[in-house]
């Protein structure tokens, strides 16, 4: 009766709560006695705080405290980024007077109301001994350094055919070459739900309400910084209004908020503004890439050379690994060279952002492939099919499941790719130039180790699945409920999913598109374990009609236990009858497959049509087709949203997004959502999203891979390639704005 629960378009379970406002985000909470924090941010790009005049702020109505490097809140060091600490930068706030980047936290004002705290913060006078920051990415490129190994491989990796001395030699020998230099600015994950923290202390310790993708690592990080036993810190994150990577790490403000609440003996809430997010909660680094491709006249790649330099904040931690995540494996070529460097910048902390590495890397590689196709006068889909890889270059292992070729073919057919004009700038409708473009997408199939879930079967006939992950709009609640409902043979509505709490079963959190592969497989295993536990209880409990039977003779199906002689009871009835409130069991995800046997990626192909105005070069996206190969799709409705959201991200990358860092000051000139442009609805075309259905059982029993980031990979290249097809103009510097297209 419920076998089709998986795959069908089940509506998001918390949807009604979200649209009616019943869903409470961290900033919505108002525990009694609440005080409000407001951050004071540095107005110089590098230097030392020499004095803080808090007198006026302290005299301002309602202000309770002004914390600064000279009146700090004690935090404990010794935690650096590791699997156990998710601290977002390599320093702790207010513990020294150093200013490492413009917009760094240099103070926290706490007051009775939000408005009073904000006013107090405006009155704090900070005196700096300023030094010039290193904030000019272009100027820093020559000083770029090695970041060390990447994914266990050297940062400069040569996979050369026997006898080929260098990638340069391989390129020189290739009759047709194409490529160029591709650049993109820093970007910011700025979810609409601002980062918010509410810290409440009681005898049990600290409860921290925090919009986070990773409740359990946050709790461990906060406990370490506050010098608390981890058992005394609980992080709650019931709803998260978007994260995109920016809510993965624990930033400085929750630490200060928790410490202030402890110092003041009152709950404290700090909500940071969208403007503050541009410096406090991390950026995607700028990236400068060169790609050179060499091919034979029939389009067979002979050499792929891809070198990337990414910015990296002196505050740490994450840089875009553009070449190793893309050109390393996407195409079959006898000679591949990928290299990565980092240019250190006095910039806001560099952090994760949707498809880190693949986002810039796919833009460069897939643009270069389009340039090569143009040089060869070959259809871009055909070029990709001719260079299709079935084993990982240099390692020879196959993919667990790969149907990218089907994505190309099906996508081309759905889109009507055969109507594409090979000659750029040759199709016009009135004053509009029309262009088609395509690109490939690939994102690793990740699965975390040690992910645990618990399933409880209740006497009321319902079930509950729980794990310490998050639902940041991804549909994780819905997926977990559906997976467990399917295993238990219950209607989806009868299975509640509980997450967003650090005390729930072990889970790193929701990131790296690993949620379904990790948590859903754990939940499924836990459901099986709970059924086994139910059977045990049924045969052991003296009041049970199944008492004394061999567990092997008791069968669970569709919510009922049956046994010999017509014994039959719904599990809820049984538990009620024997007066047990519920049975539960935990289990974990199976370990990911051995990397020596398989590589695991999700794949996709994007096709898009653009219009460019012949006079003003305004760009309009007309339609987008994406065909996705991500194994088994657990819930097509939320999966579609994930891909669509990823595509909107790609549109932002292609046409709009970029933080403008002033070279002299390190200040972000457009640190607000009026000037940092993201697509609005009018910019988003009709999406035709199609999922292939090839369960990847080499990856996990369930056959599901990740989809959260895939839509972002390659979509910007598809747009840029379509713009070239429309206009004959190749723009290699993102975002492609009007001024770069005309002329």
């Amino acid at each position, binding site marked *: 009766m419920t076998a089709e629960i998986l795959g069908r378009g089940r509506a998001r379970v918390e949807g009604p709560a979200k649209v009616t406002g019943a869903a409470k985000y961290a900033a919505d909470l108002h525990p009694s006695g609440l005080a409000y924090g407001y951050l004071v941010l540095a*107005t110089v790009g590098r230097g030392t705080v020499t004095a803080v005049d808090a007198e006026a702020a302290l005299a301002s*109505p309602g202000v309770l405290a002004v914390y600064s490097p000279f009146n700090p809140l004690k935090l404990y060091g010794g935690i650096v980024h590791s699997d156990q600490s998710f601290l977002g930068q390599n320093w702790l706030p207010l513990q020294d007077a150093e200013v490492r980047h413009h917009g760094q936290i240099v103070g926290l004002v706490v007051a009775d109301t939000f*408005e009073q705290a*904000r*006013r107090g913060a*405006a009155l704090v006078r900070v005196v700096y001994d300023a030094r010039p920051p290193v904030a000019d990415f272009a100027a820093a490129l020559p000083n770029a350094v090695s970041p060390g190994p990447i994914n266990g491989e050297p940062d400069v990796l040569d996979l050369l055919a026997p006898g080929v001395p260098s990638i340069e030699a391989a390129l020189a020998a290739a009759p047709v070459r194409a490529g160029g230099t591709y650049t993109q600015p820093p970007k910011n994950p700025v979810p609409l739900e601002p980062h918010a923290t509410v810290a409440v202390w009681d005898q049990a310790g600290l409860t921290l309400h925090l919009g986070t993708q990773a409740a359990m690592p946050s709790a461990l990080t906060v406990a370490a910084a506050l010098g608390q036993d981890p058992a005394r810190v609980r992080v709650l994150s019931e709803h998260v209004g978007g994260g995109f990577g920016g809510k993965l790490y624990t930033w400085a403000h929750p630490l200060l908020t928790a410490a202030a609440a402890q110092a003041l003996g009152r709950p404290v809430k700090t909500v940071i503004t969208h403007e503050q997010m541009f410096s406090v909660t991390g950026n995607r680094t700028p990236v400068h890439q060169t790609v050179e491709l060499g091919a034979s006249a029939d389009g067979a790649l002979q050499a792929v050379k891809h070198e990337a330099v990414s910015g990296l904040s002196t505050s740490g931690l994450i840089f875009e690994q553009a070449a190793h995540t893309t050109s390393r494996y996407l195409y079959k070529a006898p000679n591949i060279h990928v290299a990565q460097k980092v240019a250190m910048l006095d910039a806001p902390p560099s952090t994760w952002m949707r498809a880190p590495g693949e986002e810039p890397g796919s833009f460069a590689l897939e643009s270069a492939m389009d340039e090569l196709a143009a040089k060869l006068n070959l259809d871009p889909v055909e070029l990709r099919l001719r260079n299709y890889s079935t084993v990982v270059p240099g390692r020879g292992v196959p993919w667990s499941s790969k149907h990218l070729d089907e994505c190309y073919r099906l996508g081309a057919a759905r889109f009507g790719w055969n109507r594409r004009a090979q000659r750029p700038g040759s199709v016009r409708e009135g*004053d509009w130039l029309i262009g088609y473009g395509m690109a490939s997408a690939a994102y690793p199939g990740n699965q975390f180790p040690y992910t645990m879930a618990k399933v409880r079967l209740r006497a009321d006939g319902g079930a509950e699945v729980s794990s310490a992950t998050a639902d940041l709009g991804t549909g994780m609640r819905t997926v977990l409920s559906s997976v467990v409902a399917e295993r238990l043979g219950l209607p989806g509505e009868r299975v509640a999913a509980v997450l967003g709490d650090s005390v729930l079963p072990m889970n790193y959190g929701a990131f790296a598109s690993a949620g379904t592969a990790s948590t859903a497989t754990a939940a499924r295993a836990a459901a099986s374990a709970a059924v086994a536990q139910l059977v045990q209880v049924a045969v052991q409990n003296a009041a049970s009609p199944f008492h004394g039977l061999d567990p092997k003779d008791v069968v669970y199906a569709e919510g009922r236990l049956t046994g010999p002689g017509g014994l039959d009871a719904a599990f809820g009835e049984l538990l009620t009858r024997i007066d047990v409130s519920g049975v539960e069991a935990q289990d974990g995800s199976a370990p990911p497959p051995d990397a020596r046997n398989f590589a695991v990626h999700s794949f996709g192909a994007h096709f898009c049509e653009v219009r460019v*105005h012949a*006079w*003003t*070069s*305004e760009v*309009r996206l007309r339609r987008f087709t994406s065909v996705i190969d991500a194994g088994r799709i657990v819930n097509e409705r939320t999966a579609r949203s994930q891909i669509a959201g990823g595509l909107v991200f790609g549109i932002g990358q292609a*046409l*709009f997004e970029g933080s*403008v860092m*002033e070279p002299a000051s390190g*200040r972000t*000139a*457009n640190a607000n959502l*009026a*000037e940092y*442009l993201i*697509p*609005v*609805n*009018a*910019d988003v075309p009709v999406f035709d999203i199609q999922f292939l259905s090839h369960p990847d059982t080499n990856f996990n029993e369930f056959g599901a891979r990740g989809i959260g980031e895939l839509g972002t990979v390659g979509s910007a290249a598809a747009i840029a390639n379509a713009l070239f097809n429309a206009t004959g103009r190749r723009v290699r510097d993102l*975002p492609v*704005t*009007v*001024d770069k297209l*005309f*002329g």
Partner: protein
Amino acid sequence: MRAFEYAAARTPADAFARTTPRTAYLAGGTTLVDLMKLGVVEPDAVIDINGLGLRGIRLDRDGLRVGALERMSDVAEHPVVAAEFPVVAQALQASASPQIRNMASIGGNLLQRTRCGYFRDVATACNKRQPGSGCPAQTGANRGHAVFGTSASCVATHASDLAVALVALDARVELAGPAGRREVPLADFYRLPGDSPQVENDLRPGELVTAVAVPRLAFARRSTYLKVRDRQSYEFALVSVAAALDVRNGTVRDVRLAVGGVGTRPWRLPLAEQALRGKRLTEATARQAVEAGTADARPLAFNAFKPALLRRTAVRTLLALGG
């Protein structure tokens, strides 16, 4: 944001009586409250003028008269405005977002402040916000800044779309103050920055904008507003063109042309208008006229594209109107 007093004025006289150099009138609040939150303006008291009437959208013999407190959305959707002055309706529709247009008034729109990022960030210098402190936009992030009417003190654009349309139509603003009523052509109402960019217009202390009057112009029915920006909606103009055209048998009898996103105030192109009058409208004549009318553009480091984009946008607009 500083704590402030709030009072609702009941009559214009009441509003004038409450006025001091440290008060501000509040209409829709979409500019004022925003700037107060940023600490850019810090009035001691806010005088709410929404109770003053100052309403009405009327077309008569003399032309169109719109009360200063009419909301942008109501004016944009008014059938008479859409039919007689499409350039006005379109300029409003292309402004801000539906939510803001529902809140924002016509008077407030004309008096909105520049979107220059330094003006809005109190941690930086800005001559307009703090006279004499400097103008970082001269060499800083100035992609959105002006190419006409700039000075060494200030290069900020006037951000209103509506004002561009109204200047093209020779609109006048009606003012009322403690010393009485007067009327000023909107084009003269705005000041060039010169060496005192903090003075943006001709408004005297305590004065209210009460209405905007647009003289009758039969050929305004053939008018349009074209706004070019990086994304399709919810953004200020990179460049914009307001045009009205009287063309018969392919010959231009009369034309009005004003441009936005490029001037320190709404920028009329009289030389281009002059060059077009009596000419056949072709791509070549339009281009020549627009080039003549924009020859004095002075681009900055990051907005060098604006004169060319403006010219193309203007030619496109003229040809679309003429065709």
